């Protein structure tokens, strides 16, 4: 076990992948000499060379499109999109090519591309640096979408994503980059918990609280705070956003009868809607209250002085838990 920051854990996972497979190649803006604007790829170009860790010109569609060509050639490109809000120029290549080529060619051409995206807010940045675009990609068939919440998963899942023959969007909660945690670097990604499974990170009996990425920590803090009031929250770290491991969520909701989903992304058409609808379909008769979504608002990501109003925090989540439990809450009297 080693104490590693979140960013360092990803770095270590990338290093393992580069060591294990000569076909793994890292591409992105400022990832080489600089080591990435968040230093996630620090030192990798020095150790693996400019042909394995490639600083690219500033063109996201080209980064993605050339990754497609490299995948055709048998490589496993790992692409860094510098910030969430910079992914849109690459959107066409991701949605029209990366996601569809395996289907288009009836399995002849594999697209084992990993797309690393630092995402989410809470770091006081200007526009385009704090977004949560995951739902665009969970809505696109052919892609797998994951988000990790702790250094150990960061280390293991990045390797699993690179090993996957399907394209994987790997969302990194940038405000957690400096959080530290114990990481077992001896873990084998092939036998570890598969990346498309969710994990119960805190057991509870009264309400199921589903989170992913940056909000898993917030959700766990909420569970701890609620315990003081005698409320038992079961926290699920989704880990995989496409597909969602509904078996794990369903088992929890069958036990608690109540569901709260939280994410930073805006509410409408988001993951929370998907989880709430699917769980309602699957175990309607076990629900004792309507599912509750505690999410960012349907607004462009706001200026940083007000971002904490947009981001679901511990208190807003607990207010949602109260709503699910039928306890007095901010909307008491409004619901019908």
């Amino acid at each position, binding site marked *: 076990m080693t104490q590693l920051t979140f960013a360092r854990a990803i770095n270590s996972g990338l290093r393992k992948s580069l060591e294990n497979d000569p076909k793994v190649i890292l591409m992105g803006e400022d990832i080489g000499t600089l080591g990435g604007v968040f230093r996630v790829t620090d030192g990798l170009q020095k150790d693996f060379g400019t042909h394995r860790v490639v600083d690219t010109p500033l063109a996201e569609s080209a980064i993605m*499109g050339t990754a497609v060509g490299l995948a*055709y050639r048998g490589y496993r490109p790992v692409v860094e999109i510098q910030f969430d809000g910079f992914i849109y120029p690459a959107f066409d290549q991701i949605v*029209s090519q990366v996601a569809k080529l*395996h289907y*288009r060619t009836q399995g*002849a051409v594999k697209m084992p591309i990993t797309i690393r995206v630092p995402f989410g807010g809470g770091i006081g940045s200007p526009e385009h640096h704090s977004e949560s675009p995951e739902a665009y990609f969970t809505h696109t068939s052919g892609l797998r979408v994951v988000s990790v919440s702790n250094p150990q998963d960061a280390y293991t899942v990045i390797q699993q994503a690179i090993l996957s023959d399907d394209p994987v969007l790997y969302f990194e909660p940038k405000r957690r980059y400096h959080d530290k945690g114990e990481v077992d670097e001896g873990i084998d990604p092939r036998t570890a918990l598969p990346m498309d499974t969710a994990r119960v990170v805190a057991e509870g009996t009264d309400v199921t609280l589903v989170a992913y990425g940056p909000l898993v920590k917030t959700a766990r803090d909420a569970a701890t705070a609620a315990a003081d009031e005698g409320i038992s929250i079961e926290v699920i770290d989704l880990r995989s956003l496409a597909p969602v491991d509904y078996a794990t969520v369903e088992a929890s909701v069958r036990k608690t009868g109540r569901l709260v989903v939280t994410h930073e992304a805006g509410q409408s058409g988001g993951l929370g809607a998907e989880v709430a609808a699917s769980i309602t379909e699957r175990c309607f008769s076990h629900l004792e209250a309507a599912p509750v979504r505690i999410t960012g608002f349907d607004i462009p990501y706001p200026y940083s002085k007000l971002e904490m109003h947009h981001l679901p925090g511990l208190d807003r989540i607990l207010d949602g838990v109260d709503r699910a439990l039928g306890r007095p809450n901010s909307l008491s009297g409004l619901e019908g």
Partner: protein
Amino acid sequence: MSTDRNLIQLITPAGERISHPEFDPWVKDIGDEQLCSLYEDLTVIRRIDVEATALQRQGELGLWPPLLGQEAAQVGSGRALREDDFVFASYRENGVAYCRGVDLTDITRVWRGTASSGWDPYTVNMATPQIIIGAQTLHATGYAMGIQNDGADSVAVTYFGDGATSEGDVNEAMVFAASFQAPVVFFCSNNHWAISEPVRLQSHIQIADRATGFGIPSLRVDGNDVLAVMAATRVALDRARHGGGPTFIEAVTYRMGPHTTADDPTRYRDANELEDWAAKDPIQRVKALLERKGLLTGQVQQHVHDKAEAVAREIRSGCIGMPDPEPMDIFKHVYSAPNSWLDRQQDHYARYLASFGDPAGATSEEGAR
């Protein structure tokens, strides 16, 4: 403004072989026999195009993008490639596909709607047709970066049209190709029309000159001259193979037909323009050259005719005889490993189909992962 560069031309529209000190050496191996063979390719490809167009008119294909008039650009370049070179083309390069050895039935598959694409790219080293305009130029550039990493001397070749040169992807591809000096050839078939939009709307300068700004050398070649196209392509391939980086080729040609069988070009272009280009026909000039050289014997003509007709019969029977896909095939190959979301939908749809006593539903479980 750009300089108005003369086109590279080795065979005039009248069928006269003119000498060109710079490019002649690149086709010195093309003797009488090879010239007859190129004539056969051109004729066969036009016949494929005519047959496919007829199949569309008869309702056997949903759509077809004719290449009428562009045969020389496709044969001249297609026959210049080595087997281990890799092609990333648009939907109109069916003549290139023929040169790569793609099965004729496979060419029609996507247009008949029995599959999203027709062949395994690795069997012929050619990606299946790209429909998003210009997207494939990035794939070729990335593939070329892979060739470079592997230390191989093959080349990635990408085909696109004049309209595509306005797309961001094509411009970004040239940025990457130049920065990494990737072994890629950008082959632009300037057929003068992007559906209804004339080339002058795409570019204020000659298309070939666009490459200059990226630091990529370019060639402007008579796209209706099979020999000149071959020479230019060989120059570009040779440069790429020997570490010289990318080359941009503008093959100046003309789309004699509609954009696709769903298009009506009489709404936007002048009949006179069509007449002018008919006089520069790529097949007629090779035929005239062969006649001048006394090579167009009755035997040669008969052989080429028979081959073209045999190919036409093959494409027709292959197309019409193609089995329809099974309903549950729509779920195949979305992912390379099981996916719980899709597996559930697939299972539910199989049950739905089975509820009608539909045999497709009953057998679908076989196809299910």
